[in-house]
């Protein structure tokens, strides 16, 4: 009987001892998943010979020709040619396209008017542009136009 009592006490002490051992660390795993995709970016930059852009360096810039006329003064960076029937004003604009995570060697640049213009004719790099369809040309990355 004495042995049984001692055994019981020992077992109880073992349980208490085990419970008293603090578990002072905890672990966790965070599994992180991502799918990397290639991407390209287009920004407009002010050309040294052209009109300074507002919002240069972004993909939403503004080119303000200012007051234009066939014979009057034009703003800095504006080039004008006048004929008997019309005159043309132009400005150089840089387009910069960057690529990441891509083996693509070059890109196609297209342009299109945001709204129809029944009075004036617009060209980009000599290519007429309208609001009807995009006109384009192939270019290399990170080059200015």
């Amino acid at each position, binding site marked *: 009987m004495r042995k049984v009592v001692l055994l019981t006490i020992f077992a109880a002490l073992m*349980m208490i001892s085990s*419970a008293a051992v603090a578990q002072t660390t905890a672990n966790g795993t965070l599994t992180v998943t991502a799918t990397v995709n290639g991407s390209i970016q287009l920004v407009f930059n002010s050309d040294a010979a052209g009109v300074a852009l507002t919002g240069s360096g972004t993909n939403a810039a503004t080119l303000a020709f200012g007051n234009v006329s066939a014979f009057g003064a034009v703003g800095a960076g504006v080039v004008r040619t006048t004929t008997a029937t019309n005159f043309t004003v132009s400005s150089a604009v840089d387009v910069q396209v960057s690529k990441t995570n891509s083996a693509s060697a070059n890109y196609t640049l297209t342009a299109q008017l945001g709204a129809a213009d029944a009075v004036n004719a617009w060209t980009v790099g000599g290519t007429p542009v309208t609001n009807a369809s995009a006109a384009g040309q192939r270019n290399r990355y990170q080059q200015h136009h």
Partner: protein
Amino acid sequence: MNCRFNLDGRKVLLILSAMLCLLAASAGAQTSSGQLTITMSVQSSISLVFQDNPSVGTTGFCPLTNAGTNNVGLDLGTAAFPGNFHTSTCVNYQHITAAFYEVRSAFDVVVSKANSSSPNYRLAAQISTPPPNGVVWLVNNVTLTNTGFTALDAADNFGQRITKTLQVQVRNNVPAQVLLETITFLATAN
């Protein structure tokens, strides 16, 4: 030799009657009859035993040791506040507040009656020792104390299983230790 007999009147009559009976028997043809009057007082009684719930082994219904008796054991295993840690697969473990966890298990109480016209009984319970700070023992959400019986039910039916849930609520600052409590259930016939 000093023999001393202390006989009162009834004993003397009894002895004489016995002697007469013996004499009559020895006479052979004579008969005699006797009458033994038995009296007793039947008392009504009730008994209380703990039984495993029919759902024993499933979550929330741990097996009792010595089920079917009025002295049983209920092992709730090992548990801790962090990580919803508990070793027993039959207990219900949950965090009941931001600082307390609870372990619970249900069992059945069966109270039987004999020689009683009592229609039902009331049930109360009491713990044997004051629990450590941050530890609460309950039955069916009724907190138990060691200062007196706490009423659980007012009118339970005899012979029917009454399922009771033993709960232990432990605050998260309670040091590691064995929480042992003897809960006495008292059934009183109404």
